[in-house]
Each structure stands twice: as C-alpha cells, then as structure tokens.
C-alpha cells in the first residue's frame, strides 16, 4: 500500500471526526448546521472512496443538501440566532447541573469510551474475508432487469424494504402536515425577487434535467429513484425559497395523488405480478426492467414532491381549509 492513499484516508477520516466534534460542540447553532452540511459532503467523498457512488449521490443530495436546508429553515423559524445561542448556552450549563454535574459527565464519558472500545474490538475481531452477498447479487443480476446492482437490490431483491421506506417518507409528510400548523409559520409568502428568483429560474430546468438523467441511468450506472427524487426535491426547495407556491387548484387532490403515486404504483405493480401468478413483487424476468423503470419514475416524482413538501413544512391548502 502506498503512502498517499493512506494519508488521504487518514485526513478524510480524522477531518470527519473533527467536524462531528465541532458541530456537536459549537455554541453557535448556525455554525453547527453549516458544519453539518460540510460533514455531509465529506461523507459523500468517503462513500466515493469506499466504491459506493450511489450512496455518495444520495448523501450529497439528501444527507447534506436537503437535511441541511431543512435544519437551516428550522433555525430561522426558531428565532434570532443570538437569542437561541444564549438560550442554548444556558441550557448547556443547566444540563450539567441537572445531570448531577461533572461526576455524571465523567461517568458518561467513561461509559462511552468503554462502548467505543467494545465496538472497535468487535469490528477488529470480524473475520477478514467478507461473507457478504456480492456473489449472490452478481449471480442473479442478469435476471433482475437492471445492471446496476444497487438498483437491483433496491427495486428487485429487496424491493419490499424500499416499498416500506416509501411508506416512511409518506408517513413523515403526513406527520408534518398533521402537526405543522405552527403559529409562527414561514413568513416568506411574498415572492422573493433578485438573485434567488433568478437562480431558481435558471437552476430548476437544469435540476429537472439532472433528475431525469439520474432516473434513466439508474438501471445501469449510479443513480436511480432516490437520487433523482432528491434532486427533484432540491429543485422544489429552491422554488419554495423563491416564493413559488402551487396553485390552489392543484394543492388539493391532484397534489396528494402525486405525493402517493410512487407508493401506490409500487404496490399496484407488486399486486399485479401476484395476480399474474408469482409472489408479491416477483417481476417476470422479461418485463422486470420496464416495471422497475415505471416504478422508479413514479417514485422519483413522489420523492421529489414529498421532500419539497417536508421542507415547506405545512399543508399547502391549510389556509384554504380555515
């Protein structure tokens, strides 16, 4: 092993740990979130280093980008940063007092060190040869309808996981809409002019294009519904930031249909192949590629819409309701 990659890996890993340390300890919440976004981007780099480009794409778009945007928006809604920072600091001191003070923290640190050592020992004691499923995936890949193994796992071998996961996403939206009528709902209802609007107008078509590309290429190369969907979601976030809102006409049932389209189509295809004669979600080998693309297309749309809606945080028709 040459020295250069070693140094590279070391720098990556320790920077990541350092970033985590900084973002969790920083007294300034804004700075913490910015560090968190940087943390996410660094994670994406590590994913690439670990030969996981699909994960890297998802991490960059969702882990760093959308989560960061969500947190920043939340911070903005919490109130002026100075106030929250001071409140936070008070809180920190209070927690030391309430938790039994310094001895408590010492115990906690010791406990975590023990935990980390135990886990480290566990990892080191794993056999060096991985008994993973790479061979099994490789053997069945030809039958899966796609050539990107990650997509094959996500949408064919373990499609049931993915279906439930779409459910989690939809559920999160439901939750946010049920709880989201905060008194201090986002004030930015008037269209924002200037740079942001311009940026949005320029970037949105580009992002749509990227999303379409990722979706299309996902069967063969890194990409797929989640990556495409998150790019779409990013476009949506941008539009929301620029002050664009869905028309009243679409905010009702049509919007909801688009939100659930991915999950419904997924379930429908699964049931359809079941009626044809297999088990649930058993695609016929010949049409597997097409069915997966169909599901992915609908899923991309729904994921994008849901992510944007999660960012918006309230039901688009909530005012119409009252």
């Amino acid at each position, binding site marked *: 092993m040459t020295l250069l990659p070693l140094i590279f890996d070391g720098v990556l890993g320790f920077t990541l740990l350092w970033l985590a340390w900084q973002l969790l300890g920083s007294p300034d919440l804004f700075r913490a979130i910015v560090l968190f976004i940087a943390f996410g981007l660094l994670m994406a780099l*590590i994913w690439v280093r670990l030969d996981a480009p699909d*994960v890297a794409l998802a991490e960059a778009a969702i882990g760093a980008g959308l989560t960061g945007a969500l947190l920043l928006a939340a911070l903005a809604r919490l109130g002026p940063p100075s106030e929250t920072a001071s409140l936070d600091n008070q809180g*920190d001191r209070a*927690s030391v007092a309430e938790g039994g003070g310094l001895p408590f923290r010492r115990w906690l640190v010791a406990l975590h060190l023990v935990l980390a050592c135990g886990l480290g020992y566990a990892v080191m004691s794993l056999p060096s040869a991985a008994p993973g499923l790479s061979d099994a995936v490789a053997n069945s890949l030809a039958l899966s309808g796609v050539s990107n193994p990650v997509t*094959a796992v*996500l949408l064919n071998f373990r499609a049931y996981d993915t279906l439930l996961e779409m459910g989690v996403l939809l*559920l999160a939206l439901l939750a946010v809409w049920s709880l989201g009528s905060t008194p201090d709902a986002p004030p930015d209802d008037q269209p924002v002019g200037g740079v942001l609007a311009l940026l949005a107008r320029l970037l949105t078509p580009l992002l749509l294009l990227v999303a379409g590309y990722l979706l299309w290429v996902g069967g063969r190369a890194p990409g797929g519904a989640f990556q495409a969907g998150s790019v779409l979601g990013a476009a949506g976030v941008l539009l929301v930031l620029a002050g664009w809102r869905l028309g009243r006409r679409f905010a009702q049932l049509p919007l909801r249909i688009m939100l659930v389209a991915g999950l419904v189509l997924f379930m429908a295809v699964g049931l359809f192949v079941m009626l044809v004669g297999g088990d649930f979600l058993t695609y016929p080998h010949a049409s597997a590629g097409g069915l997966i693309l169909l599901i992915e297309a609908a899923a991309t749309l729904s994921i994008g819409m849901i992510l944007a809606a999660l960012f918006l945080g309230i039901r688009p028709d909530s005012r119409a309701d009252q």
Partner: protein
Amino acid sequence: MTFFLFFALVGIGLFTLGLYAVIVHPHLLRKILAVNVMGSGVFLLLVALAKRSDSVDPVPHAMVITGIVVAISATALAVILMLRVKGETGRVKLPETPQE
C-alpha cells in the same frame, strides 16, 4: 490495518460521539444533529465493512440509501415537533424532570 477497517472505526467514533451528544445537550436542534451523526456512523460502518471482499457488496449500499431516506424523514418530523414545542413552551428543550 486496512483502510476500510479504519473507516469502520471512524463510524464507531461518530456513533459514540453522537450518542454522547444526544444525552448531554439539552437543545433540541443539537439533539437532532447528534442523532443524524449517529446514523452516519452506523452507515459508515455498514458500507466500510462491505469492502472486505474484493467485489463490491451492493446490499449494504442499498441499505444505507434506505437508511438515509429514513433519516431525513425522521429529521423532518423532529424539526416540526421541535418548532411546535418552541411554539407551545417558548423553549427549545425538554422539561427537565420527566416525572409527574
């Protein structure tokens, strides 16, 4: 020590750091950040150890993508709850004594 084991250990470091932060930091936003860091640690471990075989094992990759989506769903819910708690109590932390 090979590099993937190193990254797995980094993952463990992130997990423990996050766990510690969840427990000691009272501010809810910081707790949310900490949970996300913990999640990243688990994901890192999951993928790094998959590098032990020469050919890439895509199953952990798929699992991590799933995990990332679950994480943002949970974060979105946590954020909205945090905002509601702030709206109702005026504070961004949980009441100190869970009893009564």
